[in-house]
């Protein structure tokens, strides 16, 4: 709180300290994420591929895939899955970030928010890389997965990243302080995948159901990302990026407030 470090011998500025913490933590997280796990690299690419194939298999088994107007089914689903994973992983990586780095709060330079920010950044970078691999791979297979409006696609991607960050910030504080929260968060993962229109298009649902489903900001983000990829795609009626960004900004703000409020508690935990 009222602590200062006044040093004649060249104390580093607050920003310099923060940047060196982020740098150190980024290198650490990057190594443990990609190298420490067995075949970490392989699964980073294989997991979404496997997931997509399973989903496509189920979908084409249940019913035909000619319900989506203005886009092929497989690229449509890949875009949705990638966008959804970006948010979900942003949230889930934040959940364990503080506990995993508890030992490092012994150094006063390290704050509880640092691992959350760094993990989210790292996860976003990795997801972006994997997505690009997918796009290139699809291109080689002659599949239409190149964005028709690249600028809008990038904007949509960054928006999803921002919401993931906001959720990650909130969940990291609450999940660390209240153990039950992390259980609930893990639980809503699967229903969220379906409710966000990742696998089944929401367009065909009745109006009364849509009214509720459109409260979920992830739908808005995914639909406009899809629109950026497929020019002729008809988004779900009522898709609004303003609504999405209201969510993103409020979750980020709330997350930052929580981190500020419970900083000492998180450190002492």
């Amino acid at each position, binding site marked *: *709180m009222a602590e*200062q470090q006044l*040093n*004649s011998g060249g104390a580093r500025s607050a920003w310099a300290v923060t940047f060196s913490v982020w*740098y150190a933590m980024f*290198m650490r997280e990057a190594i443990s994420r990609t190298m420490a796990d067995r075949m970490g690299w392989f699964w980073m690419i294989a997991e979404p591929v496997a997931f997509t194939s399973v989903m496509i298999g189920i979908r084409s088994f249940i019913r035909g895939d000619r319900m989506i107007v203005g886009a092929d089914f497989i690229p449509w689903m890949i875009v949705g899955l990638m966008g959804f994973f970006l948010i979900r992983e942003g949230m889930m990586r934040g959940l364990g970030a503080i506990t995993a780095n508890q*030992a*490092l709060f012994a150094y006063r330079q*390290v704050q509880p928010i640092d691992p959350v920010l760094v993990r989210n950044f790292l996860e976003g970078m990795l997801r972006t890389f994997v997505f690009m691999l997918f796009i290139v791979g699809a291109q080689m297979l002659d599949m239409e997965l190149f964005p028709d409006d690249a600028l809008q696609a990038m904007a949509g991607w960054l928006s999803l990243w921002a919401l993931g960050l906001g959720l990650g910030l909130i969940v990291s504080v609450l999940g660390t302080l209240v153990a039950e929260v992390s259980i609930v968060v893990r639980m809503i993962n699967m229903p969220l995948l379906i409710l966000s229109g990742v696998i089944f298009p929401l367009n065909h649902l009745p109006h009364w159901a849509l009214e509720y489903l459109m409260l979920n900001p992830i739908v808005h983000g995914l639909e406009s990302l899809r629109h950026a990829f497929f020019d002729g795609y008809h988004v779900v009626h009522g898709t609004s990026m303003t609504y999405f960004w209201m969510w993103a900004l409020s979750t980020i703000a709330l997350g930052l407030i929580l981190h500020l409020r419970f900083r000492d508690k998180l*450190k002492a935990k």
Partner: protein
Amino acid sequence: MIEIRHLFKRYHNHQDSDWVLKDINLMIPEGISVGLLGRNGAGKSTLLRLIAGMDTPERGEIIRYARVSWPIGLSGGFQNSMTGRQNVKFVARVHGAGLDVQRIIDDVEAFAEIGSAFDDPIRTYSSGMRARLNFGLSLAFDFDVYLSDEATAVGDRAFRAKATKAFKDKIGEACLIMVSHSEGILRDLCQSGIYLKDGQALWYDDIDDAIKAYHADTDSSHDNQPEAFEDLASLSLQQLHTLRLERKQAFEKARQEMEAAQKPDIPTSERKAYGSAFRVAREQWHTVIMAIQKRQADKETDT
């Protein structure tokens, strides 16, 4: 220089937790090494954590006019799943070492002398190995003030000697704030002392005075012990066993201190004091063991 103003600290473990530290005002001058004394639970480690900035006080403030290390000692500071080398690299980067990182890693590896274990995950380390690494790491940075929380307590004789020497070499460019129950080391390395008692901190310009004050308080409670001896018969077997374990620990600690004091640079009078403390501890331990054996023998004759 470190300035502590109206410092209050308590932990919210229970509903009516008492203040661990209550209105502490201190001015630790530059270039003076300070020993922290007090009973277990008097708040020595808490004060050290607060000075290090690991913890925040309930009220009051701590102003550091110098580069202060983290508390060097047993507790934490390393991430278990990463190797020693990776942890050292991380800490070096956090402290803004920049291009110096490799030099720091080499220094720490040389000091810690843990061999190939340097590339094993921290979770496989013994407490002595952790202490070596933590200690070596802190020495790799040029702090003005080093905080030591029993940094030399674990670790073998060679390491203790090395650590003490390393601290001595730093005198002049850096100073120490240390918690230790080994009074020899305190006398060796510190000039002044702080005695923590009932949440209050008393400053002594001379470490010897602080040790004397500490002894005066603890010895007065030792005087009551002969009465406790007579009560051995009234204790239950369970209580006797816990007492035996306590005595055993005290005995072992006294033995370690005595062994640590077996150095030519410690005056004979002080060595004798450790020797007699050791003998008293051994005597007390044996009394309890005898009492337990007697009790068990009685039981067998009863049944």
